C-alpha cells in the first residue's frame, strides 16, 4: 500500500467528516456549529479531489470540489447575516437559546 494512495486520503477526509459532525452536535455556540459544517464540506471536497486524481483520473471531481468551496463561502455569508440577526435579538449566540419553536 502506497502511503500517498487513495486510502490515506479517504481516511483523512473521514476524520475531517466525523470531526465536523461531532463539532456540529456538541458545540453550544452557533459559530462553533458552523465550524463543523465547514469541516464536513471540506472533507467532501477533499474526497472529490482525491478520487479525481487517483482513481477516476478525470477532472470532473476537481470541478465539484471547486463548486463545493464556492458554495461553502456563500453559505458562510448567509450564516453571518443570520448570526448577526440572532445576536441583535439575544445578545448571545448560544444555539440552545433557540427553542421558542418546539413540540
Amino acid at each position: 500500500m502506497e502511503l500517498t494512495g487513495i486510502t490515506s486520503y479517504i481516511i483523512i477526509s473521514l476524520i475531517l467528516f466525523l470531526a465536523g459532525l461531532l463539532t456540529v452536535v456538541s458545540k453550544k455556540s452557533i459559530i462553533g456549529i458552523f465550524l463543523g459544517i465547514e469541516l464536513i464540506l471540506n472533507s467532501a471536497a477533499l474526497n472529490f479531489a482525491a478520487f479525481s486524481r487517483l482513481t477516476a483520473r478525470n477532472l470532473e471531481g476537481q470541478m465539484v470540489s471547486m463548486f463545493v468551496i464556492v458554495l461553502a463561502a456563500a453559505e458562510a455569508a448567509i450564516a453571518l447575516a443570520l448570526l448577526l440577526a440572532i445576536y441583535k435579538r439575544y445578545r448571545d449566540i448560544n444555539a440552545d437559546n433557540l427553542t421558542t419553536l418546539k413540540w
Partner: protein
Amino acid sequence: MTYFIKSYGFIIVLLPLLGAVVNGFFGKRLRERFGGTASGYIASAMVFLSFLLSTAAFIVVAGSHGAAIVNHAYTWMSLGTLQVEIAFLFDPLSAMMLLIITGIGFLIHVYSTAYMHGDQGISRYFAYLNLFVFSMLILVLAENALLMFVGWEGVGLCSYLLIGFWFQEKQNTTAANKAFIVNRVGDFGFIAGLFLLYWFLAKAAGPSAGTSILSFSYLAEHAHLLKDATIFGASLATVICLALFLGATGKSAQIPLYVWLPDAMAGPTPVSALIHAATMVTAGVYMVGRLNFLFSMSHTAMAVIAVTGAGTALLAATMGCLQNDIKKVLAYSTVSQLGYMFLAMGVGAWSAGLFHVMTHAFFKACLFLGAGSVILGMHHEQDIRKMGGLRKHMPRTFATFALATAAIMGMPPLSGFFSKDEILWQAWSGEHGHPGLWFAGFLTAGITAFYMARLLFLTFFGETRRDAHHNHHDDHGEHAHDRVISESPAAITVPLIILAGFSAAAGLVGVPAALGGSNRIAEFLAPVLGHHGTAGTHDPIEYVLMAASVCAALAGGGLAYLFYLARPDIPVMLAERLGPVHRLVYNKYYIDEIYGALFVTGTKILSRVLALFDRHVIDLLVNVSGLALRTQARIAGWFDQAYVDGAVNLVADSTLSFGEQVRKLQTGRVQVYVLVLVCMVALGIVIRLMTV
C-alpha cells in the same frame, strides 16, 4: 318509460341531493325570506318527486319480468383493471327498497316539518336528511360494490351528523362519536372483504378480465371462481363473507357492534325513525341479500350469520324488557328485529328477510314517529314511568301506535305476522335451518310481545304518572304542571295514520301458500334472489309453528298485561327476588362496561407497559375470576359513569397521549435534530452491514 329509467334513472338520486344543496347553502336565506317552514317544504318536495319517479321505476321493473335495467351515468374511475362506473341498477330488489326509502322517507320529511318546527338549525336538519336519502339511494341503486360503499359511507356520515345534531349537549356528540367509531370498525371489514374479492377475481380472471370486476353482474357471474380458493388455509369465500358480514354487523347493529344504536337515540326522533329504524340499519341486510350468491357459497359464513342474528334477536329483546326510555325500548326492539332479518339471511331465506325489512320499516317507523308524537305531547319527557293514560289525550297517536305494536307482536293478519312467520318457518325447515334457530326466534317473539305490550300499557293505559318521579326532575317539574297534554298536529298524525295502514296491510303481499296466498313478494324478488325455501308445499308443521308463535305473542302480551296493568306489584317483587339477574338485564349485561374495560386495558398496555399490573388491572383480574355477579357492585362502582361513557373517547385519548410522546422528539434544539440524524444514519448503516 323503460327508456326514461334507462337513460335518466339517476334523477331519482339527484333530486334529494339538490334539496340538500339548496338547504345547505341557501337555508339561512330561505329562512329569512320565507320563514322556517320553507326548508321543510323544499326537502319534502324533492323526496316526493323522487318517490313519484321511484314508483314509475317500480312499475317498469315489475313489468319487465325481472330483467334488470341499468342506467350508466358516467365512468367514475378507470385504474387499469379496475373500472368503476357510476351506474344505477334497477331490479326487483332495488325497486322495492327504492319505494321504502322514498315513501317512508317522504312521510318522515312531512312529519319533521312539524316536529322540528321552530328549531334553529332546521335548514341544516333538512339538508342532512336529504343528504341521507341521497346516500341511501346510492347505496341501494349502486350497480357495483364500490359505489355501494360510497353510499355506505355516506349514510354513516349523515347518521353521525344527525345523531350529533343537537351538538350543544355533550352526550349527543359522544353518542355520535360512538356511532362513528363503531361503524368504522364495521366499514373496515366491508372494505377488506371487497379488497379480497377484487384481488382474487382480478387474479383469477387474468388479463382477459372485464374492466368492471366489482359490478354486481360480473360478481354474480364469476363468483363460482371462488369455490376452491383458500387463503391462509381457510376458504376464501368464507373469509370474504365474514369480512363483509362484519361490515353488515356494524351498519345493522348486530353482535358485537350493536352498541352504538341505542345511544344513537340522542338524535331527533324522526331521524331515529328514518335512519335507525326504517332504512339505514337495513343496509347490512340489503347488502347480504344483494350478494346472496356469494354468501350461499360458504356454509360457515351462513351459519355464523344465522347464529349471530338469532343471538342478537334474543339478547336485544331481553334488554328491551327493562328499559324505561321510550326510544331506547324501540331501539333495542330494532336491534332485535334486525337480528330476525339476519337469522333469515343466515338460513338462506333471502326473500323472507327482505320481506321483513319491508314490514319492519312500516311498523317501526310508525312506532318511532308515534313515540315522537308522545314525546312532543309530553313536552320532551321520554321516561315511560312518567307517562300513562295517554290514550285519552292522544287518541290518534294511540290508535296508530297500538296497531303498529300489534303488528310487531305478530298478530294475524297484520304485516308482522306474515313476515315473522315466514322467517320462523324457514329457520325450521330451510336448507340451512335448525330447530335451535327456530326456538331462539320463537322465544324472541314472545319476549318482543312482552316488552312491546309493556311499552303500550305503560304509555297509554292506566293513570297519568307524570309526578311519580317528580323529585328527579326538579328543574322541569314546576313547568310540567302548567302544560297540557294534547294531540299532535295533522302533519304528524297523517303520516302516522298512513304508516299504520301499511303496517296493517303490507303483509298481504307475502301471504304464504300455506294460508292460501301465493307469497307474491318472494316471486317478485326471485329474479335477484332465486327461489328458495319450500314455497308451494304444504307441511302440517307449518301450521303448528304458526300457532305456537301466535300463542307466544299472546302469552307475552298477557304477561305484560298482568305485570303492568293488573298487578303492578309483581314486577317490583320480581325485581327484588331476582336481584342479580334483574340488575344484569337492567344494565344491559354490562356489555358497554365490558367494552369499556377492554378498551381501558388496551390503553394501559399501550401507554404504560410498566403500569400494567397496577391496581385497576389486578382488580379487573380478581373481579373476572371471582365471577361477575357477586362483585358486580364493585365493578359498577369502579367504572364510574364518565369512564364508561368515555370508553370510546379513551381510545382517542390514548392515541393522543402517544402523539404527545412523539411530539417530545421535537425538543426545539437544532443540534439534537442533527444528533438524531447522525445516530439514525449510523444505526442504519451498522444494521445493514451486520445483516449482509
